[in-house]
């Protein structure tokens, strides 16, 4: 509850996070940052968007403030609100206002989940005005030159109601993320979970099997994140088939026939 007492400095990332570049996303993000353009990260869950932001924050030496959006998130959760302290009302900045003031990178994860009214504060920040209206304070806050806004969005499975509006999406430089190709993905997993490359390669193959099932019984195939989870279990001595069952199959579906089929696939492979 004392989040507001944290200083932006504490959001600096000190050690280089491991991020395996897939294309030219690093260069594009850097250019967008220099040009003060906001960035939209598109892509399925668990494909490395959050990790990429951590890496970029480290690389650009800016603090990273992440907000996971949910359907109760309002504009004042982002901007700030009055609290009562010692009989008086005091204003406390929300994460977005804090980033704007201190020149941090603000990353709004799953932006479409947030309430519609949050767009009112995001729009003026995301065009060349770069200002944050703070209605309750009666102020307009201009962003420092180091501030950067970045949002993520998964076009895959949101309902039509939650589609990103044109007026929003046309403000951002878009970077498309997808699962890396097999070799890269295996390398990521081997590194993240400290397992050998051959086993990692098999996990990736298994992931492809589940991705083949997308649309014919599964909503999504296994993400890189799930593969890392399974790999970690294997690293700790769990058998690959069990690890795939617990870390991947169960995470993907509740349908018992589908679960059986996925287990059959993993037991065929390992």
């Amino acid at each position, binding site marked *: 509850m004392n989040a507001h007492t944290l200083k932006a400095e504490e959001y600096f990332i000190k050690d280089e996070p491991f991020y395996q570049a897939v294309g030219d996303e690093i260069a594009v993000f850097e250019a967008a940052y220099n040009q003060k353009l906001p960035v939209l990260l598109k892509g399925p869950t668990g494909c490395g968007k959050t990790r990429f932001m951590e890496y970029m924050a480290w690389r650009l030496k800016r603090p990273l403030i992440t907000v996971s959006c949910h359907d109760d998130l309002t504009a004042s959760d982002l901007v700030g609100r009055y609290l009562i302290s010692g009989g008086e*009302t005091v204003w406390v900045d929300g994460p977005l206002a804090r980033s704007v003031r201190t020149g941090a990178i603000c990353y709004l994860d799953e932006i479409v989940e947030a309430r519609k009214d949050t767009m009112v504060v995001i729009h003026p920040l995301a065009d060349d005005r770069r200002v944050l209206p703070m209605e309750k304070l009666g102020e307009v806050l201009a962003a420092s030159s180091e501030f950067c806004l970045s949002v993520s969005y998964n076009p895959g499975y949101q309902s*039509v109601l939650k589609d990103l509006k044109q007026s929003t999406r046309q403000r951002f430089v878009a970077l498309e993320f997808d699962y890396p190709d097999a070799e890269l993905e295996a390398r990521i997993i081997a590194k993240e979970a400290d397992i050998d490359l051959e086993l990692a390669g098999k996990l990736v193959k298994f992931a492809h099997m589940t991705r083949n099932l997308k649309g014919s019984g599964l909503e999504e195939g296994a993400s890189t994140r799930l593969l890392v989870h399974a790999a970690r279990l294997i690293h700790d001595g769990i058998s690959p088939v069990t690890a795939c069952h617990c870390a991947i199959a169960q995470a993907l579906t509740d349908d018992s026939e589908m679960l059986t089929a996925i287990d059959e696939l993993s037991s065929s*492979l390992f």
Partner: protein
Amino acid sequence: MPASLSTEDIEQKLDLLLDVEFSFLKTRHHAETLAALPSEKQHYLLVWIDRIASTNIQLAYQFIDQAVAVLDEMDKNTVEDWALYAMDTYDQAGLHKALAVIRDVDYFIRLNHERTYGASYEDQASVLLHFVHGLSGRQLKIDQSNLGQDLAWTDTETIYLPSLIAKLDSCHDNFLLYKITVTFLWAQVRFGTFRAPLQQILEHHDEAENVQQLFHTLESIRLEACIQRELPGLYRDILRIKTHLSINKDNSVLSDLIDQLEQPQCTSQISLELALTNLQHLQSCQSLYYQGMIKPEQVYQTMMDRIDKEKALIKISLADLEEELNKNKSKPGKLDARFTKSEEEDIERTSIEITLDDQPISVPENIRTLSKSILLDLDDIPAEYLEAAGPGEYDPELFKPKEEDPDDVWKGTYHEEGAFLYNEWDYRRQHYRKNWCAMREKSVTPVYDSFVSDTLNKYSGLIKHLRKTFEAMRDENRVLKRQTDGEEVDIDALVEALTDSCDGSEMTDRLYTRMHKSERNIAVVIMVDMSGSTKGWINNAERESLILLCEALETLDDRYAIYGFSGVARKRCELYTIKTFDEPYNSEIKARISGIQPKDYTRMGFAIRHLSKLLNEIDARTRILITISDGKPDDYDNYRGEYGIEDTRRALIEARRDGIHPYCITIDERARDYLPHMYGPAAFTVLDDVQQLPLKVSDIYRRLTI
């Protein structure tokens, strides 16, 4: 314990059950046999004779003789399974086969044993289908082989499997054998067994049969090596299962070739050459169960059709893509697609690159899928395949799916053809008839006439009133002020409270604002009777009601869908889509409502079952299924009277079990006799006058959901 029946009593009953007046069956002898049994057995058998007679009288007659003989050896469950199996066989294969089931009890007992320890296609199909979809390459379908053929094979699009595998001793191993079989046949497609010019050679060869067999033997060795590399876990299972499958394992003569066949770079062409050169001194082995059989002719046909089709499809898809990309451009760009074959054989990574004026374009899913499939057939994608089709080069009509034959539905793969099979409840049998109804979703041709505007004018006063009453039901997200608890401070309240506390008066604790979230989370399906009897006034009233209801519903956030139902007999059950959940209420929907026409009969079970399924897929707190009808269920193949009512009732029970609230609005004045039985005492309204329908439907909906 019921009283024991005399021969005369029994004979009388049998005469009735077996309809001897018309069937001329002699029942005296049977009656005597039954009379000799203890009363409990008499009654038990009479119940089952009655049930079977409802399906077929001859079948029931045969049953009496046999049942008395086996009743002591078989437990009741087995007797019932046997009777039901005979009736199912009657449904699917006719009287002759069903009588055989009754006569050959031993066969059934053996079968029953197999069914207990074996794995059946029916039980495993969906797991196997998911499984084969997970493997790479073309998305294969699976289906049952024709009756009597228990071998597995593939035509490179569908894998045909036996209906039961009971070769091994446990359920699990039998399932494994299914899985291995599926994988093996998948491997034929995936690793190009049929890329070898087998069919061409067989056509001219004197020893065609031997060639085919030896080729199969050699290919099986090659494919097992492929599986070993690709799916080592499954390969371990193969090795284990092999020891249980008794075969003459003498393939020592082959050993020289095995090395060569097991190389990763070995192809089916090499297998074929080896088969031809070694034809004289090599004998093919009997193939193992899971290796299935090959049917070169069927494969060849399927492949030729597909190759032509996919060539056209990919060219058309590229043309469509080009058009799409150039849509809003003043200067159209040039699309260019290129294929580079990857070194390793990895179908998932074959790369097609598409550029528009040298700008890379991400390859759409459908083109990716097509190219995978083409690659499996040709091992390459020829350059001419990647030139976008010119205007009019192909007639798109060529690729439209053909008009379905209603009987095809039972041959499998029906989901893709838009048909669904539903069980139906047979009350006399006290059991479901399996996959008895074939249902298709059809569309209503929109009619753009003055019907809608006439209705809107005619009821303009009522509509205004409805909108107002419906608006009052709205439950929206809104901020509640002065709450004791909430997400935010209510500044106004706080300021007041602070002033109060300065005065010394008591400070209120209602200092927060809270977001009130809508609780109203309703999905409703309106199921409209489109049977022939609605012709005229009723149809008119139904259409008017729908318009009024839509107008009213539009003021709410309730999700709603509208379907019409009708049909002729079980093979042509039809559900007409008027509005799906996803479609907005617009001029097209209005025109469809206007276009609702009376069709055929009133079969209701399938419609309730299908719409329940749709409702269950919707994430809503309350799900409602409203039927608007003019009479009781009725269709010409026995769906009259009690049968139809009982099936409908059963379908409604199923729906309720899934948490759906069914409700019926009808204008049949005799409905009070049967509706309480079908819908329950409080879940229907009977209107005395058609004219009331439009006035009432919305009102009823309001009361239901208030």
